[in-house]
């Protein structure tokens, strides 16, 4: 019995329930790496990439844990396997595409232990998505994350040249803009339903 | 002719339409101006190296006599604007507010003021090099405002060539009618000047570009066009800054001068009409430049008009003679768009001064309106003839991001036409910001150790 189409899974993860703006996953990069557009964009690309990898890894682990009947190892194995997979991929990229590594590489180790990645793995398991669905879910989540980060970065670059009152400078301003963005994304509610 | 009426005059994109205010003086023939009791001759009235004095204090000089020689190629000599005695060689006040090297000259009262003749250069026989040297010796600089030594411009660099000589008679600046009068009264001089220039540059043809608000000037020049000269008159749309050489080139030739490049990169040389007339007048007699036509106008002037004014005449004297109102509080050297508001009346007119515009209280007050923050209305973007983003540049300037301005937003391309400032509803003095930003960057570059 399936009622969620792939299209809807994608829309849901990217817009309606945007990982950052509705689920509050990956807030740290959202606050920390959204200062400059170029960085934000590369970070977003790296996140999409890592999300796809971890989604596939998590799918495999979950199947394996069901098979050996050890659900209690879920969390530990997710974090360990995701971290090491990303590490491997990082080494691989470093070896075969130094330019790609330069663009994404520095972000990879940082992202690995961020809640958006682990959250993605946990959500796809909780929602019982199959392999394809998981993949689409990860893609949507990554694109949604990038969208939020890039929109935020554009706004912050603009606000760098604004006479922001002293009291609101820094994280507070970023949070307020995040709140308004989150309000904006509420407009997507019910899409694809 | 009917066909001409249907055809739209060529022009460039963007730009503005400020009110012209030319009615007051455009019908006033050029008249001579009396000599001031003291003349002030700065040694650097042009872009480039200052000239070097060849006279000494107390020496008597004749009008047109060499006062200072050129110091190198990018420099021009200075000639005596009047017969008189050298009072002092020292520092003289300048428009920038700083004291600069210069000469004080006291004209002999009541002298006939005959102009000294030099070695004539005949257009038929002279080589391009000789013409260029003669232009330098005549002390000629761009009279269009920039005061760039004209001979430098005419020396076509190795590997480049000029195909069109554009004579700039646009005079898009409000209030000014100098070039207009020159085109009405000195057509033969202009034609003669074109002959010299064509020969010097090797250009195949010459075009006189005139804004359509001066039909009489175009008519007059067309009447004088000699059949043997590849010279034509092109009427262009009335739009500021049509007279900027880049815009004129675009209007007439449809070419764009590359960013950071010069007109010669698109095979054009642009010379102002008054400069051309001066060349045509001085070279056949081997004379040096000692006076120029200046429009004196504005609401603060009673005897508005166009005058031959000896170079070095102090501003205060000019205003006295022209009957300035008591309450003038803002005087522009040049037009109100490109010109500079003077901070002192003790400065002299120089070779680059094309107009003097004096405003009274009310007009000035309108200009000093409160500055609001940029509201992104886009008016400046729509006005900038170079397609820059003055709004962003202005914000960056406010936050002192000068390097970003230059690297990401082409600050250095801005030619300070002031169109953006003119249209800004928030009264942001954008062009001032840009001038200052460029200055900061230039100083920084000068200070940086050479690599």
């Amino acid at each position, binding site marked *: 019995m399936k009622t969620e189409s792939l299209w809807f899974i994608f829309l849901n993860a990217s817009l309606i329930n945007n990982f950052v703006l509705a689920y509050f996953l990956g807030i740290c990069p959202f606050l920390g790496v959204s200062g400059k*557009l170029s960085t934000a964009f590369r970070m977003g690309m790296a996140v999409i990439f890592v999300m796809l990898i971890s989604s596939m890894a998590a799918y495999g682990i979950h199947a394996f844990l069901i098979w050996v009947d050890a659900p209690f190892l879920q969390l530990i194995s997710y974090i360990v396997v995701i971290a090491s997979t990303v590490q491997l991929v990082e080494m691989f990229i470093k070896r075969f595409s130094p330019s790609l590594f330069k663009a994404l590489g520095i972000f990879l180790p940082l992202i690995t232990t961020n809640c958006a990645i682990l959250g993605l793995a946990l959500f796809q398991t909780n929602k019982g998505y199959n392999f394809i669905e998981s993949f689409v879910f990860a893609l949507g989540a990554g694109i949604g994350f990038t969208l939020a980060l*890039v*929109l935020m970065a*554009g*706004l912050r*670059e*603009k*606000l760098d040249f*604004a*006479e*922001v*009152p002293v009291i*609101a400078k820094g994280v507070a*301003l970023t949070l*307020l*803009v995040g709140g*308004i*963005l989150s*309000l*904006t994304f*509420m*407009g*997507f*509610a*019910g*899409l*694809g*339903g | 002719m009917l066909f001409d009426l249907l055809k739209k005059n060529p022009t460039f994109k963007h730009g503005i339409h400020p009110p012209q205010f030319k009615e007051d003086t455009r019908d006033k023939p050029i008249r001579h101006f009396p000599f001031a009791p003291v003349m002030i001759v700065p040694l650097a009235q042009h872009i480039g190296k200052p000239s070097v004095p060849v006279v000494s204090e107390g020496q008597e000089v004749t009008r047109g006599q060499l006062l200072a020689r050129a110091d190198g190629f990018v420099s021009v000599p200075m000639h005596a604007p009047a017969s008189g005695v050298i009072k002092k060689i020292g520092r003289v006040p300048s428009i920038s507010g700083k004291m600069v090297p210069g000469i004080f000259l006291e004209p002999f009262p009541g002298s006939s003021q005959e102009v000294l003749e030099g070695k004539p250069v005949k257009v038929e026989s002279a080589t391009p090099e000789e013409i260029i040297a003669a232009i330098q010796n005549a002390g000629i600089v761009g009279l269009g405002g920039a005061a760039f030594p004209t001979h430098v411009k005419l020396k076509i660099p190795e590997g480049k060539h000029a195909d069109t000589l554009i004579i700039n008679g646009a005079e898009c600046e409000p209030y000014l009618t100098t070039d207009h009068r020159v085109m009405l009264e000195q057509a033969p001089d202009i034609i003669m000047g074109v002959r010299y220039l064509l020969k010097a540059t090797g250009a195949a043809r010459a075009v006189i570009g005139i804004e359509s608000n001066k039909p009489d000037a175009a008519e007059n020049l067309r009447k004088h066009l000699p059949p043997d000269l590849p010279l034509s008159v092109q009427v262009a749309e009335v739009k500021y800054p049509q007279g900027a050489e*880049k815009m004129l080139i*675009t209007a007439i030739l449809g070419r*764009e*001068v*590359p*960013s*950071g*490049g010069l007109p010669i*990169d698109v095979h054009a040389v642009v010379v102002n009409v008054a400069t051309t007339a001066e060349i045509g007048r001085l070279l056949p007699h081997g004379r040096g430049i000692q006076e120029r036509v200046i429009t004196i106008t504005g609401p603060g002037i009673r005897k508005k008009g166009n005058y031959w004014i000896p170079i070095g005449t102090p501003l205060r004297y000019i205003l006295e003679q022209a009957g300035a109102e008591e309450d003038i509080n803002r005087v522009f050297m040049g037009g109100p768009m490109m010109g500079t508001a003077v901070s002192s009346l003790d400065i002299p007119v120089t070779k680059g001064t094309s107009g003097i515009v004096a405003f009274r209280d009310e007009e000035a007050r309108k200009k000093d309106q409160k500055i*609001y*923050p*940029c*509201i*992104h*209305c*886009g008016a400046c*973007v*729509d006005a900038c*003839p*170079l*397609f*820059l*983003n003055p*709004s*962003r540049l202005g914000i960056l300037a406010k936050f002192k991001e000068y390097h970003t301005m230059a690297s990401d937003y*082409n600050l250095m*391309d801005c030619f300070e036409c002031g169109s953006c400032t003119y249209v800004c509803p*928030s009264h942001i003095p954008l062009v001032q910001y840009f001038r200052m930003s460029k200055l900061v960057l230039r100083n920084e570059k000068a200070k940086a150790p050479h690599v």
Partner: protein
Amino acid sequence: MRNVVYALLPIAAYAVYTFGLSALLLLITALIACLLTEHLLNHWIGKESPLGDWSITITALLYGLTLPPHLPLWMVFVGGVIAVALGKFIFGGLGYNVFNPALVGRAFIQAAFPVAITTWMAPFLPDRFSHIPSSTLTLPFLKPVYDITSGATPLSLMKFEHRATDTYSLLMGMTSGSTGETSALLIALGGLYLISRKMMNWRIPLALLGTVYLISTVLHWSNPDIYPTGLFMLFSGGLMLGAVFMATDMVASPITPLGATVYGIIIGIMIYVIRVWGGLPEGVMYAILFGNAVSPHIDNLIRPRVYGTGKQWSKS
């Protein structure tokens, strides 16, 4: 900017005529809330009071005009404070607001009090000038109680019952809806006035309305049973008010002509998507806020080619 106020006044007057005393009180409250907040906040940080530049009056009027007419006044007040404090002051005041302040205020109210802001009153009630609806005067922090005939907006009729309203009623403001959105005709006239005074970038409304009209006409033609007509889409809901007065807030929109056009198209598409495929009957507010968020990127990506640059003119 005073011109914008002039353009809004007829709309406000007609709103009061349509919805009566409650609309009048609502607009007054919105003005008081916004002006007071602006004044006090600027006073607090030692800035000169900016009421003289009229921008906050525009914000207040627009904010008021986007609310349902009998919204409790205390909610109107809260939203007004938020509009100014969160939508404008926190970014540095005039010229720096990255979002449209009026819409920030409305979006806040819509998320905070979703029931109240989706309850509509019928237009032209006979006792509208003698009776103040009980909901209008609800005490602060209390839920409104409604004692008047409620109405359904043309868009919710379309979304939930699939009934289209005729164009004449939409143009003349015979429908229920937000205080100032009902008469498409007056709004369009106000827009033309502003365009004629060069106070407005006409490309934005043109691109926006054109996009909505084009998409809806094509889809209506492909399946008239599901998709409403272009004219219905144009004149219903807050589209006109948003396209003419709110998407055009230049502070939060792109600066170049092409950028403005792209911005209008993006907002237009998003409005159509939310209205037709989304959960909510109306999406103008969200679409414009989204457009505001995208506009720095539009300005970054769409820049006019600087004179003398580009392949053709590069110095070689």
